[in-house]
């Protein structure tokens, strides 16, 4: 198991290197000049040239990338060009906020997906099963930003149960409960799509496991339903469910970035948007690296859980 983990973790390095090179090149290929952003339209060419030199933007691309990589490897993400804040101080709190939204959404997606999927699989072709399939089809096809606006109109504007936007009340510090109130709508908005997909996957995996010959034999032997499910059905159905859940976590990170705009949730989504439009290279690099790192680590975690569930996968 240790060898498996080391092997997988070592694989992270080339992936991160590739991501950083691609983002670096994409940002440099994008038209537009950071000096126009920083100095305004009336700045003289001499001032722009001086600024390009001060920022090292007149250096050859490999040299610029090499310097950035060297600093990053030493834990220095540099200073944001647009905000003049240290990139770590700018990005890390946003990363935590995005993760909070993502984990809350994942929790909801798992509770809804696993619960509804299990129930639908055990009562196949029932009204609940058919209803679940219709609802999940709709939920899985609904764009999250539209769903978010509808939820806001209902729960925040019409019923006034929950706040519209932000992570805390602006005029005061309401503590953890305040954050929870603000978390409900964005988390539900982000979770519903993945919850629908997980529900369908749980249902079909369990259905497939329930139809297997050894399960029929066990049932014929008179095994109780609970024991049957625990020992012979759920364990066998879990690997694809865990895999799809892991993939959904990736989708959740992406979905959270969109939801953040609708709910003004101060996460990586709005930071990435602002940084790209300001051509703030250090902030863009750090943000995308963190998102990529989270995505890769989640995949490793999923593989690890699958190996625990099915040791045959260790050598796969």
């Amino acid at each position, binding site marked *: 198991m240790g060898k498996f983990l080391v092997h997988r973790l070592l694989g992270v390095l080339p992936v991160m290197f590739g991501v950083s090179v691609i983002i670096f090149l994409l940002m440099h290929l994008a038209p537009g000049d950071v000096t126009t952003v920083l100095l*305004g339209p009336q700045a003289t060419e001499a001032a722009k040239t001086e600024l390009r030199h001060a920022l090292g933007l007149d250096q050859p691309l490999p040299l610029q990338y090499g310097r950035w990589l060297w600093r990053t490897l030493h834990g220095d993400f540099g200073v944001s060009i647009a905000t003049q804040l240290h990139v770590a101080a700018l990005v890390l709190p946003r990363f935590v906020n995005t993760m909070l939204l993502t984990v809350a959404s994942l929790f909801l997606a798992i509770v809804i997906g696993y619960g509804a999927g299990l129930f639908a699989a055990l009562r196949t072709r029932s009204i609940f099963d058919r209803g679940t399939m219709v609802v999940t089809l709709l939920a899985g096809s609904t764009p999250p930003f539209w769903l978010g*606006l509808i939820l806001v109109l209902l729960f925040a504007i019409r019923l006034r*149960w929950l706040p519209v936007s932000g992570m805390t009340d602006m005029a005061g510090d309401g503590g953890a409960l305040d954050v929870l109130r603000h978390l409900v709508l964005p988390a539900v908005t982000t979770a519903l799509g993945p919850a629908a997909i997980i529900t369908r996957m749980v249902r079909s995996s369990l259905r497939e496991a329930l139809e297997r010959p050894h399960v029929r034999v066990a049932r014929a032997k008179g095994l109780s339903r609970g024991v049957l499910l625990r020992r012979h059905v759920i364990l066998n159905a879990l690997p694809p469910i865990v895999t799809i859940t892991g993939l959904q976590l990736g989708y959740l990170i992406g979905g959270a970035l969109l939801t953040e705009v609708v709910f003004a949730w101060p996460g990586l989504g709005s930071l990435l948007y602002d940084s790209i439009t300001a*051509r703030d290279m250090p902030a863009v690099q750090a943000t995308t690296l963190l998102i990529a790192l989270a995505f890769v680590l989640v995949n490793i975690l999923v593989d690890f859980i699958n190996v625990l569930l099915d040791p045959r996968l260790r050598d796969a």
Partner: protein
Amino acid sequence: MSRRTTTLRAALLAATTLALAGLTSGVARAAGTLVWGMPAETDILDPHATGGWSTYQVTYQIFEGLVKEDLTKADVPTPPLVPALATSWEISPDGTVYTFKLRPGVKFHDGTPFDAAAVKFNFERFWDESSPNFYKKAKAFVIAYTKWIKSVEVVDPMTVRVTLKAPNYQWLRIGLQSYGQPLMISPTAVKKYGNGGIALHPIGTGPFRFVERDQGVKTVLERNPDYWGRPAKLDRIIFRPLQDPATRVNALENGEIQMMSTPPWDEIQRLVGEGFKLSTNANVPYINFLHLNFKNDAMKDIRVRKAINMAIDREGIAHDIYHGTGRAEYGMLSPGTDAYDPTFKSYSYDPEGAKKLLAEAGHAHDLKLVFELPQYGTGELVETWIQRDLKKVGIDVQLKKYEWITYMGKWAGGMPASVAFNTIGWGMSTPAWIDIVSRCDSAPPGGVNSGWYCNKEVDKLLDAAILERDPVKMKAIYQKANRLIMDDAAFVPTVDDLQPMLLSPKVKGFVNPPEDWFDLSTVSVE
């Protein structure tokens, strides 16, 4: 149902009720706090090294200059210039020497006294390249103001003299409109935090002082209790960037913000019907317009330029798209300037006349033109309207859209011959702004005369206007220059938006002046 089950359910119900009560009651608001939902995060808060009206909306509350525009009046054509950190100023007969008497007893928010040494320090920061306090970025931003300066002297501890290279009677107002603004920053703060550090530690003398900034979330200011002038009414102002217009509307309706800028046009009447207050100003200091490209073959023909001016139904745009919060414009002087003439009408909507001119120019049906523009939400409606109107007179317009920063580079760099026109919304409360977009020597690089327009007669008039001390004569010269520019059909002024702001009924004392930013010291929230 057993007694135990009943008790358990009752306890659960009570807990749920309490939790719901906690969830729905929200957090008690501090008295006199204004939360303002803005469409974008502001730039850094160093007034010498930043540009753009959304940032001035914050920095105006924190910093002051020697002179300021009085933004407490809405019903004036242009904000009057009033004393701020200078109690008075004298201009020499030849118009080159400005002597400022400074206001005694003023302190920066960090306790540093304001005096002539502080003024000198600030000028050194944004102008004097030989000074150790010089900040290159500040000079690049404040260039429209500093390029006129020859010298700055401390006459006595409360008097400063600035000598210009040449007379310029718009210089004071240019300072307040310059891309970066020459406002007074605490020298102690600059020495303590460094030139770059002011971005995060903005310390001025204004009615509000900086408390905190959570980048992308909020910027918080509080009342300056030691303010030299009339103290601000609000305890706090919280500036909140809310990018999505629907989110801003929802937050206003839900009471999370009390004021919002750039509301979606089609939502304004509904919100007013629900009791929210709409504030606009007819004398906005900017105009939306098209630069016509004098390097483009078709655009070199004045008949084509005039035809484009005549083919666009500006009144229709103002009525149908802006829903009454916009006004058609026919000249390049914005309504917020002294020189604006509301009766001036260059080219009325006349599609038949436009067709005739195009036919005369040999373009009855076959004219294809490229229109470069930035990609942003509400502008799109106007641009497709223009495309449709031009199609009606036989001009086939291809829209080429770019993300904002890319567009800024293209616009500031000047149009290549293949592009017929591009667009921008800009202006100042000084008519001298017209120099920036229309002078021969404002062509790129170094200028933003994006369409390469050049008329020496116009330049001569603009030179004369800047030297004219008599405001009536100055106004007449700018109006003449404007007429010449529109006779050349060098631009297509389109429609201004009248700076609509939506306010909660709880907000009192808000003034929407003829400027892009506001004095919030008069505002209170019930």
